[in-house]
């Protein structure tokens, strides 16, 4: 596993990509129940519970090709996150374990520039399963927004979050499985349930998560569904939140308008690069070199390595 260290200052770090490594593809092919890969007339397709099949281009998951794309994007380090919307983590433990093991084995063997987030089985969230992965160099753990959308969810994952906190490793919160109505456009879940679930996880963290885990560094994917922009409404409704330097937001899928609005709301220091490749191709934000240096280099370092990082003079 390629660890990210504080010596990587000056390196662009994309904290949010997905790649299904070979061992995971093999297990998904062998399955006879969703989530599974099936070969049809048009090639490989992903079958998820309650959703229509979606074609999969396995070239998107070729490590060499992806490493070349990372190089072309100028990313010195890339963290692979588990594809939480597949619903692997939520399967019964006996079904989830071979898939999670295949993911961890596969991403741990990826060449530079890749590192990875560990996945957490939700049937019985187990810090003892996470600890050796952190020992092996996984950057932190990634869980679905739906698993942390309530006090009960935060408590259920409490021991895992405590381990991350104790080990000074971050948590990535990512949208989870979502069923779209039949014949819905391809973007339906991304613009409805993903946004709503990230939004809920953001406010659940304010209401319960932060109190229980005062030192945990947390990164919300996709700007937390723009949840922080609702702070005026939170105040109007009698809530309050102060600045929280331990919370980060990745900019995946958003452009200049949303990112600049977030800069206005929370400042530039807590925004990090997350491209969500191969779901979305990376696009540079035209917000200036200083914003780029903060989002691509300094802030991901602080998210991943904790201590304040001084850039070289």
């Amino acid at each position, binding site marked *: 596993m390629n660890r990210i260290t504080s010596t990587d200052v000056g390196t662009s770090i994309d904290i949010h990509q997905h790649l299904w490594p070979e061992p995971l593809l093999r297990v998904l092919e062998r399955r006879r129940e969703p989530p599974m890969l099936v070969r049809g007339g048009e090639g490989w397709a992903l079958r998820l519970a309650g959703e229509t099949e979606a074609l999969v281009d396995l070239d998107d998951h070729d490590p060499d090709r992806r490493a070349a794309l990372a190089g072309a994007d100028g990313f010195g380090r890339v963290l692979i996150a588990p594809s939480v919307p597949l619903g692997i983590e939520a399967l019964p433990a006996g079904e989830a374990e071979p898939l999670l093991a295949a993911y961890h084995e596969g991403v741990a063997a990826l060449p530079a520039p890749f590192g990875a987030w560990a996945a957490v089985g939700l049937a019985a969230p187990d810090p003892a399963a996470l600890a050796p992965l952190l020992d092996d160099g996984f950057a932190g753990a990634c869980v679905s927004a739906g698993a942390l959308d309530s006090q009960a969810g935060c408590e259920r994952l409490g021991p895992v979050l405590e381990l991350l906190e104790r080990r000074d490793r971050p948590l990535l919160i990512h949208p989870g499985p979502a069923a779209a109505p039949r014949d819905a456009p391809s973007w339906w879940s991304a613009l409805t349930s993903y946004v709503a679930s990230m939004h809920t996880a953001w406010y659940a963290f304010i209401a319960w998560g932060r109190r229980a885990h005062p030192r945990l560094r947390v990164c919300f994917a996709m700007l937390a569904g723009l949840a922080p922009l609702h702070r005026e409404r939170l105040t109007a409704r009698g809530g309050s939140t102060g600045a929280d330097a331990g919370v980060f937001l990745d900019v995946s899928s958003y452009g200049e308008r949303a990112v600049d609005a977030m800069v206005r709301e929370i400042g*530039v220091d807590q925004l990090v690069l997350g491209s969500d490749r191969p779901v979305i191709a990376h696009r540079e934000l035209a917000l200036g070199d200083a914003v780029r240096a903060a989002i691509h280099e300094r802030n991901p370092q602080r998210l991943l390595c904790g201590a304040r990082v*001084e850039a070289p003079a």
Partner: protein
Amino acid sequence: MSVLDRAELRALVARIAAEPASWRDLVRHGTPERHFEQLWRDDDVDVWVITWTNGNDTGFHDHDVSGGAVAVVEGELIEERLVLGGPARRLRHRAGETFDFDASHVHRMHQDSAAPAVSIHAYSPPLWRMGAYSVEADGTLRRESISYAEELRPVVAA
């Protein structure tokens, strides 16, 4: 949530200036560029301690929708206020002095003495976008809209 007015901002920087324990460790002398540390940020205001050396110069700029106040706590800073058709109005702010401005204000801050300067800055609402001014060879004034990061989170952080 409420925006601080000029008097409130000035009182805030004066109060923080009088509490060096809250910022003294964040002063960095000897860096080639200005050194910026954020002391506080909330819905209404952000507060910074800035160390100046070697003739550091902001160039003429505005703060878009934010008003601000500055307390000089060490050394001296020169403030120039842009005057069309005439020389800039030049003010010298010495240690122990404070000044404030509203969002319509255009100025340039620089440091011209051998001794370094340290200042406390507060902006309300928190600094977001800024205008950076330049003058073309023919005298045309240009304004570029920049993120506050360009000013306070420069690419090469000292």
